[in-house]
């Protein structure tokens, strides 16, 4: 029938110009493959970040000065350990409250050194955040109360300073002050390109003394139950606001952090997909171009087909099918290439990539759509050719 003939002719035309068809497809292949790969990377990153945030510990409430929002500048904290005691009273259990005062510092051991983040913390940190040790022990309440100069090293710091020695019991100099290593964290890996093992925990009191400050940067609370986590946050913020009327405080939950991060990463994924989409668009222009060439080349054939009874629609459908076949076949190859590349990236590089069925469906659908959009003009031109003129074409 007519449609079957259109298929046959379209396939025949693609076969007759193999090289040209392949090069035209290449544009679509690259476009579709980049959409698939970039969306996979965006999705994979988002999934990994969400996992990590959830892995911080459940029912976590972070209390910081200032408003936690995208684009707001950090505020110098007015909080001190007295405020932490107040928060503990609100929570009713000091074991659920953790603090941090952090600063970059050079850690030295022997002739090795490593620039790292020194965090002044309470002994409650491993319970509030889910952290486990590879070796040794964590800080105790006594360490904090007596500002003992003891340190727990992150996995990569331990490796940098003591590549061939057991760090336990060794001395490290943090900002020139000696600390004794009492433990090493189990590795956490990377998150968004940040090495989460690049840190050293010391008693908050020792850290404050080290930097000559009373400041605490932030307070983390592990809420007793998920349902009343918001209410608890409000009470903590109210208490802190009463103590520091000039400063605004925020209490955010993991869900809120996930929301903010999800928004950022969603935008990022969208931007990546849009950039890839541009290459798909360029591929489409190539298809349009080659279809115009094809119509011109086969003007006499079009004239003949019209003379023997092909309607404008028959000719139009034939060329539209040719364009759609080009982009659909290119789309399928591009999908395969994209999936392969994404899996490879995920396997061999630290960049996570996750294939989602909707991104494949979208990429293929868009490539077929590109064929229709960019094939319509050449197809219409072919369909409208005057048979008299077409038969006489060179």
């Amino acid at each position, binding site marked *: 029938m007519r449609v079957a003939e259109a298929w046959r002719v379209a396939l025949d035309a693609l076969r007759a110009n193999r090289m040209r068809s392949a090069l035209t497809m290449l544009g679509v292949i690259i476009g579709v493959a980049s959409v698939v790969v970039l969306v996979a990377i965006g999705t994979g990153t988002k999934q990994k970040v969400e996992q990590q945030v959830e892995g911080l510990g459940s029912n976590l409430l972070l209390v910081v000065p200032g408003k936690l929002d995208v684009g707001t500048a950090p505020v110098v904290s007015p909080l001190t350990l007295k405020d932490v005691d107040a928060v503990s009273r609100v929570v009713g259990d000091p074991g659920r409250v953790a603090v941090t005062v952090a600063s970059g510092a050079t850690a030295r051991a022997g002739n090795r050194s490593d620039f790292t983040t020194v965090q002044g913390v309470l002994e409650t940190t491993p319970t509030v955040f889910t952290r486990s040790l590879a070796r040794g022990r964590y800080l105790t309440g006594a360490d904090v109360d007596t500002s003992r100069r003891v340190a727990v090293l992150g996995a990569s710091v331990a490796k940098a300073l003591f590549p061939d020695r057991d760090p336990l019991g060794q001395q490290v100099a943090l900002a020139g002050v000696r600390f004794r290593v009492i433990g090493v964290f189990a590795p956490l890996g990377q998150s968004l390109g940040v090495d989460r093992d690049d840190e050293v925990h010391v008693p908050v009191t020792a850290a404050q003394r080290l930097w000559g400050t009373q400041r605490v940067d932030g307070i983390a609370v592990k809420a007793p139950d998920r349902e009343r986590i918001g209410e608890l946050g409000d009470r903590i913020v109210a208490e802190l606001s009463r103590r520091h009327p000039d400063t605004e405080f925020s209490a955010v939950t993991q869900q809120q952090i996930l929301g903010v991060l999800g928004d950022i990463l969603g935008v990022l994924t969208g931007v990546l997909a849009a950039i890839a989409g541009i290459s798909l668009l360029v591929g489409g222009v190539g298809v349009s171009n080659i279809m115009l060439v094809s119509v011109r080349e086969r003007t006499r054939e079009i004239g003949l087909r019209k003379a023997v009874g092909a*309607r404008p629609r028959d000719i139009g459908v034939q060329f539209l099918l040719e364009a759609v076949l080009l982009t659909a076949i290119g789309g399928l190859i591009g999908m395969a290439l994209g999936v392969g590349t994404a899996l490879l990236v995920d396997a061999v590089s630290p960049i996570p990539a996750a294939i989602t069925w909707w991104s494949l469906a979208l990429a293929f659908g868009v490539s077929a759509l590109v064929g229709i959009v960019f094939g319509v003009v050449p197809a219409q031109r072919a369909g409208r050719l005057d048979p008299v003129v077409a038969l006489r074409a060179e």
Partner: protein
Amino acid sequence: MTPPAGVPAVEAVDVSRTYQLDGVSVPALRGVSLTIAPGDYVAVIGPSGSGKSTLMHLLGALDRPTGGRLVIGGRDVATLSAPELATLRNETIGFVFQSFHLLPRTSAVDNVALPLVYRGIGARQRRERAAAMLGRVGLGHRLHHRPNQLSGGEQQRVAIARALVTEPAVLLADEPTGNLDTATGEAVLELLERLNAESGAALVMVTHDQEVAARARRRIAVRDGLIRSDTVTAGGGPPHDRPLTDRDRRPETLDAAPSAEPRSASGSGPGHPSGGSGGAAGATGLPRHEDRTGGAS
């Protein structure tokens, strides 16, 4: 789609066709009236630019007149849309062109079956009818050859089979022998005449070869967009009731292998190709080629 006897295959009343070229009106036909009866054999003659090509395009429903009334196969062309015109061509007209217009990379049988595709006939039936038609033009042994594997005469016979496979009321042949050497052209001409007699399709042939035109039953001379004469020769044309013989195929044999039969080649006169199997169309066909560059039609 042969209309019933008595109804003309084509009827033109004061038909004109004016082209717009850069805003200037160029009349190609200026009021032409003619009636073509079923089974008629008409030669249309005229110099280039006379309007005979325009007339052929109109008779073939490839174009619509700008004035007058043109009825093809019982339908007024002026009232038809582009798709309806396509259907009319498919059902009523068979075209034979000077340059064959066969689809490359497509077998003879599929070329012949092409019009049936646009009639919506299934693949198997298409092939059967196309093969049968190729048999009628003496190419039953060339069904799956591609155009580039066929000689000029064979290609034109494929084109004739394609024109007739739909059983049209009118067979329009535009200089059908123009690209062929004399002997091959003669065979093609005889084939057209035989099919005209057998099928009952009216044969309308454009030519500027007086000898060819003289064979037609009726001759229409076109000049300056008008019909100058329309003469009927009583008993004109060769006998039609002769079956296809070896004589019809002989020039093809020559065409395909000219060096194989040098003795018979010397006897076939100045029309024989001087050399090269594929060069038949070019060598002796050239003097017959109509110069179209000057014409507005």
